[in-house]
């Protein structure tokens, strides 16, 4: 375990910075385009949610449903106990850096989704496969081929660790605490529910996501907002702490600003899934095959996710619970904060954890299955689904221990190939974006920001 811990520190010491650098690079190269596309993305999302059938095209899900499935995967326990962990490591300033990082990493998500749409492929049975593994295999030179396999394999493995084991562990812990149900029972129930959903394939997952995800995201968001507003006088000092802590962290963060930033980046990678490419796997396979549209919708997930993280974080800071340090388990910190906000209201965060982790398990199952489909074809689909549900039962008793580190370590091997493919394909991406954005301005008359995009946008250097 010590070796894993050392390797973990080794790899994440490197990756935290690199994710940021690549995101900044893409942001600059796209001329801050993703930010200007936010209104366009919102409009497209709204349109797709209201008229799910249109427009026709390849792909099992329409873009709105795909967004909800992705969001279900993005919004997980990272938004609750992950925030608590990050804030207790890096101080209140983590939130400010989280905002910065997630704004910048919208470019990352936009880029990976747009590229994944560009390089997606239709299988023999008519279903569409997309994602960084296909981007690598079809977009890059043949010598990078092995990387696609590495990406897909590591996504599957890390899904078992961080999306399956970790989520079910937290879920079981909450259930054991509130209802006293043994973890194995919780795991069994969750496994049965998961089996019922994923046996229906992508369509049934999409159907469940359209039911559950808006409910839980809006419900949690609104409840937290109400709790925060109820403590209006404490909100201002909390915000001040966040802004002050961004550049001058308290003594808690022993390493100074660097610790705060790296905690924020790691939170962004796990909570927003910045750089892991899993959003691209679902979103890019949706219809229609329009890179601009899918990219603009996919990156909105960052905004929603960050908003939920901020709500949890602000409550933690306002309550003063985050000052206790890393000695207390993250979940206990959240409980303390909820108790402070409204005595006896821990059930809100607990219900949120149950729902969040359940949708994450579903969404991760889809992502992992797609990667397995890429690796081995449809033969292993049933075996995978059985393994996934069995893992839920088996891993429920030990969520959160050494498993977490191993999962994060594997996740690094997911992030690296993805970042590399983004860098190598960035000339193509920037060229396409410079051409596509003026075109978009013409097709939909209401997109004012797109028209102001300069035609002579600087190109990426081609070595």
């Amino acid at each position: 375990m010590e070796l894993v811990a050392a390797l973990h520190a080794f790899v994440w010491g490197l990756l935290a910075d690199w994710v940021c650098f690549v995101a900044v690079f893409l942001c600059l190269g796209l001329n801050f385009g993703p930010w200007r596309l936010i209104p366009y993305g919102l409009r497209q999302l709204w349109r797709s949610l209201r008229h799910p059938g249109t427009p026709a095209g390849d792909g099992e899900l329409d873009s709105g449903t795909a967004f909800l499935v992705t969001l279900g995967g993005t919004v997980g326990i990272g938004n609750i106990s992950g925030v608590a962990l990050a804030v207790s490591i890096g101080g209140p300033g983590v939130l400010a850096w989280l905002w910065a990082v997630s704004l910048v990493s919208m470019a990352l998500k936009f880029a990976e989704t747009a590229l994944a749409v560009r390089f997606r492929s239709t299988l023999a049975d008519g279903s569409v496969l997309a994602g960084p593994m296909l981007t690598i295999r079809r977009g890059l030179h043949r010598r990078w081929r092995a990387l696609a396999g590495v990406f897909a394999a590591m996504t599957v493995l890390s899904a078992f660790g961080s999306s399956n084991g970790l989520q079910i562990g937290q879920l079981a812990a909450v259930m054991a605490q509130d209802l006293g149900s043994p973890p194995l029972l919780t795991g069994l129930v969750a496994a049965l529910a998961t089996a019922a959903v994923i046996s229906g394939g992508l369509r049934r997952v999409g159907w469940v996501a359209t039911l559950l995800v808006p409910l839980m995201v809006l419900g949690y968001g609104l409840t937290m907002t109400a709790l925060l507003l109820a403590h209006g006088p404490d909100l201002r000092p909390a915000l001040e702490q966040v802004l002050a802590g961004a550049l001058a962290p308290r003594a808690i963060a022993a390493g100074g600003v660097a610790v705060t930033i790296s905690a924020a980046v790691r939170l962004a990678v796990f909570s927003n899934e910045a750089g892991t490419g899993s959003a691209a796997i679902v979103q890019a396979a949706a219809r229609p095959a329009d890179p601009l549209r899918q990219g603009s919708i996919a990156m909105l997930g960052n905004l929603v996710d960050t908003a939920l993280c901020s709500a949890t974080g602000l409550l933690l800071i306002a309550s003063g619970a985050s000052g206790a340090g890393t000695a207390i388990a993250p979940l206990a910190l959240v409980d303390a904060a909820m108790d402070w906000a409204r005595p006896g209201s821990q059930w809100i965060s607990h219900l949120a954890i149950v729902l969040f982790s359940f949708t994450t398990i579903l969404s991760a199952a889809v992502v992992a299955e797609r990667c397995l489909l890429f690796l081995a074809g449809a033969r292993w689909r049933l075996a995978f689904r059985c393994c996934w549900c069995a893992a839920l039962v088996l891993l429920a008793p030990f969520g959160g221990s050494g498993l977490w580190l191993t999962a994060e370590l594997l996740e690094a091997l997911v992030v690296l190939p993805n970042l590399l493919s983004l860098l190598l394909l960035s000339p193509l991406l920037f060229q396409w974006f410079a051409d596509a954005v003026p075109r978009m301005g013409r097709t939909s008359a209401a997109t004012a920001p797109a028209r102001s995009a300069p035609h002579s946008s600087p190109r990426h250097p081609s070595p």
Partner: protein
Amino acid sequence: MTPSEPLASGVQLPLAGVLAVIAVIYLATLVASRLALQLRVPAILGILVLGVALQPGTGLLSVTAVDALNTVTLSMLLFVAGLNSDTQHIRGFLGYGVLLAVGGVAVSSLVLGGLIWAVFQGLGNPIPHTLALLVAACLGSTDAGATLSVLRGVQERIPVRVRSLVEFESSVNDPAAILFLFLILGLSGQGGSEGAALLDQLQGFIKSVGSGILVGLILTYLAQFVLNQLITSKDQILVVGIAIALASYGFASLLGGSGFIAAYVTGLFLANNIYDNKLITPELLEHSLEPFNTTMQITVFLLFGVLIDARSIPGAVLPGVLVALALMLVARPLSVLACQPWSPFDWRGGALIAWCGLRGAVPIALGYSVTQALPSLPGIAPTDLPRLEDLVEGLIFVVVFLNLSLQGLSLPWLCQRLER
């Protein structure tokens, strides 16, 4: 950071006097380089000798000033090296060029390190093997300017392909040598025995390379924006160049990357790029920076000539000659030979490339970094420090001197022989 600031602290001169002295010295460098060219050796050799001849005494420049000047110069040199790494000209043997630059530096540094250690062992004046490796790593990089200035005299006799390759290799092996040097410094700094410390060092190394490259990329983008949108006349390019070179060093270092790598990457990408602004071509960029680069090179040679304590040279002559011979006759040919299986050139081209490895400003600047890092090396007694510092300084000076003069003088002759 001009030499004028600290001048006043050593010798009390009025400002006018200081300026006059600087002007005279700069003019003297022109005389020296003219003389050197007359003698058919690279011009920078003349400047180096002039610097040594001046010998204004110690305490002329404070240590921090030299350090700062050294850093500025190295980052500028690497930025220009990046600008010079034109991938268009060496189409078809790009892979070989990179292999020769990176693999060649590694092979020649390792071989030379062993030889240096053996030389000192044989002379009864042993030095630690890490120090031998460090000195060898300093001597790993070749100088594009020096090589080209010699090749210019025999231009018609040298195949264009060989010329392009040598130029490219000289540019690429600068960052390679720096990386190798920092790797050795990092590995030896902690004693190298503890597993965790080794991992830390390795992480630091990978991080500095990766972050350097990424920050370089980001700054390339900023530079492009400036060049495309803000530049209104060609005369402003020099400002952009200097600012970008220094910015890439500064930002990369602040963000935990290697500033030199960032400067190189920025230069590399800027040179191999197409600009929307019709005013700007990569050649123009390179040519506008050339005067500044020449000034920096002259300054660094003069400065390091001045800084070398002439008294340290006699003691280093004998080992210096042996090491220079080892470098020219064993290490460099061996490194070219090791890459020969992938070479698109025949043995004549290979021989020419092996003899074209002229050392210049980068080894001297790096040698200075090594003397600064000496106290942190393990296994060196504090009483030994002054002796070793003198030794490193003198050794690198003698090797660069011999390398420039011997190879510079004999290159035209070799070209003639190979032609037949």
